[in-house]
């Protein structure tokens, strides 16, 4: 017999693995007819909404991993608003929305209640996911998030990062990238757009809490996202997954470009995709073909002021430096490409 031929994936040129080529148990949760459709169709998200896509994959994966024993707490924001214009709800799972900034704490409360009920022999082992946008996570919900991390409560917190307060009309958050135009960082004045030297990368801060699991993901690599959620649900304690979810409305991108934008964010090094355990990076998704940040910036209207007749070369270079730093810090360059 000849040696096993290594499988090559040609069909898209994106290194995406087609389900057909995988063993059934390795296929994506979404490929399964039995998937839960936790976030069902009919919601009111914009066409091409990265957040809706990310949430659908993440929660279905968590449902799958927990044998459908899952409760979700949701922060105020696009995801909450577009999914529950009552009396309609897209959620097929027990779901609660309390406030904008308290979702991690609400999830802690749910987990505590489940624990007591189980001790009393009154309930199954149900798991908890908390979810919110970047504003609800990195800004207003940050205190509750840090508290939940620090206590190592048994909650998976998922942040859908679209780089701004989209639900209220695209204002700046602490996750808005440098130079980006938002309604509160207009492309005017001596430093157009969101100032450099501000903002924070919450996955790194989550790691500083030494929690069992921190991961980042994008909606460009949905299998990776599913795997991370699945892995997260196999662990007890505080876990954090930060998903980059392009927002056509806020970014000024075409609806059909959502996945392309997420992929470009990763392939330029703008958004590092990695996993960490107890504060240490364990793996990173390699950039196969490093691309200049212009490729990522150009299609987005929120960066339009950097281009045109007189491109803001210096600003673009500063963004490139940020990406390069990510590449160095998280070891993002694939061996074959370097």
């Amino acid at each position: 017999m000849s040696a096993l031929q290594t499988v090559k994936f040609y069909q898209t040129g994106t290194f995406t693995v087609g389900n057909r080529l995988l063993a059934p148990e390795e296929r994506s949760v979404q490929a399964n007819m039995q998937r839960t459709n936790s976030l069902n169709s009919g919601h009111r998200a914009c066409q091409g909404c990265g957040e809706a896509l990310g949430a659908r994959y993440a929660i279905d994966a968590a449902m799958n991993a927990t044998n459908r024993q899952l409760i979700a707490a949701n922060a105020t924001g696009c995801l909450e608003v577009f999914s529950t214009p009552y009396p309609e709800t897209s959620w097929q799972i027990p779901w609660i929305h309390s406030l904008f900034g308290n979702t991690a704490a609400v999830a802690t409360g749910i987990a505590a209640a489940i624990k007591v009920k189980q001790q009393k022999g009154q309930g199954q082992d149900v798991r908890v996911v908390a979810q919110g946008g970047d504003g609800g996570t990195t800004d207003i919900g940050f205190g509750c998030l840090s508290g939940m991390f620090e206590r190592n409560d048994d909650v998976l917190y998922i942040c859908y990062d679209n780089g701004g307060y989209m639900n209220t009309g695209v204002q700046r958050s602490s996750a808005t990238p440098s130079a980006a135009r938002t309604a509160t960082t207009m492309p005017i004045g001596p430093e157009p757009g969101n100032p450099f030297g501000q903002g924070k990368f919450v996955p790194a801060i989550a790691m500083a809490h030494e929690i069992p699991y921190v991961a980042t993901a994008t909606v460009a690599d949905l299998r990776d996202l599913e795997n991370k959620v699945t892995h997260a649900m196999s662990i007890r304690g505080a876990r954090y997954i930060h998903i980059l979810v392009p927002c056509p409305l806020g970014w000024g991108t075409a609806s059909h470009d959502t996945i392309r934008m997420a992929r470009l964010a990763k392939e330029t090094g703008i958004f590092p995709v990695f996993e960490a355990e107890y504060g240490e990076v364990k793996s990173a998704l390699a950039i196969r073909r490093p691309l200049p940040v212009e490729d990522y910036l150009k299609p987005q209207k929120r960066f339009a002021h950097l281009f045109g007749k007189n491109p803001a070369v210096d600003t673009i270079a500063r963004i490139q430096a940020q990406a390069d730093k990510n590449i160095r810090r998280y070891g993002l360059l694939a061996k074959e490409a370097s």
Partner: protein
Amino acid sequence: MLKQCEGSHAVAEAVALCRPEVICAYPISPQTHIVEGIGEMVKGGELKDCEFINVESEFAAMSVAIGSSATGARTYTATASQGLLYMVEAVYNASGLGLPIVMTVANRAIGAPINIWNDHSDSLSQRDCGWIQLFAETNQEALDLHIQAFKLAEEISLPVMVCMDGFILTHAYERVDMPTQEQVDAFLPPYEPRQVLDVNEPVSIGAMVGPEAFMEVRYLAHAKQMQALELIPQLAQEFKTVFGRDSGGLIRTYRTEDAETIVIAMGSVLGTIKDTVDEMREAGHKIGVLGITSFRPFPLVEVAAALKHCKRFVVLEKSLAVGIGGIVATNVRMAVTGMGLKGYTVVAGLGGRAITMKSLTGLFEKAGRDELDLVTFLDLDWKVVNKQLEREREKRRTGPAAEAMLRDIGAVAARNY
């Protein structure tokens, strides 16, 4: 069982007897001893099947409570003053969602200037938040009200604040009759939630509601409080059957039968007022007392009935509606609309200022002669106030007012906790 203990301890034990399942704690004086007490019981294994969570803020405390209550767990927390304000958004959310959380408010003033002592500004600032508010007069009543509070909250799916005077009650050692577990179990059945996050029956809780139904949802909250007006006296009656003593209810009257003047108040100051009234009765004054136990819902009918035969009422309250006068007084006036009574508002005891029998006697005598101003600030040091006002008239940069006034008084530095 009779025992001599701190008010906070009595409440901690009472809460433990109610078999709480999730307790969230964040420290603030004068509430600390309560959650410390319960925490010890959980950690020592005395209070079983209970999660005790040390949270990072009061906002988180109420939020954890929201999550656990919505998951069907009997949930308790305690706070005061700045802590209550810090959790306000979640306080409204808990009542809006109809979650039967019980919370002790160890009543304390609100800053600035920061002040740890007792008045009712904190819970009264939340009078319209949708929670039921019960005020305890004694440590015994504080203890009893907590047991009633869980039952009340769970029967009508609304959260309940049990308000007890900070320090005056929380830190006072008094004799209390501590019920047995059997008694509490006989009175308080296990929690049966109306709504619960259940994987077998998934629901969405806390969805967005627009103009088409918002009014109705809000009205329902009001309707529930109106139901509570009936339920609170019923529970007090049931409580008496099981525990053998009067506790709770909507209002309580004292020597009001033939009273021409009725003094209205809430909380522990009722004790001092009753003593004063006893003395004045002996001196021939026709004076009585009306204690309000349930501030929310506000017992309009009962208050009106209690004041039916008097000539005047004096509302003595430990709160100030800045710009108008009294908070409790405004509510009482609503109750006596059209009754043609003379009514006086007395703001007293703010930030822990002592309310003495001597001052009260003078005050009530003046009221009896109808010589009281519409709004009186009891024992206000006018000299200090006027001096500051004058200073502000004379110069621009007068500096921080509170500090300047303290200097005028020449008080020893206030202790900070």
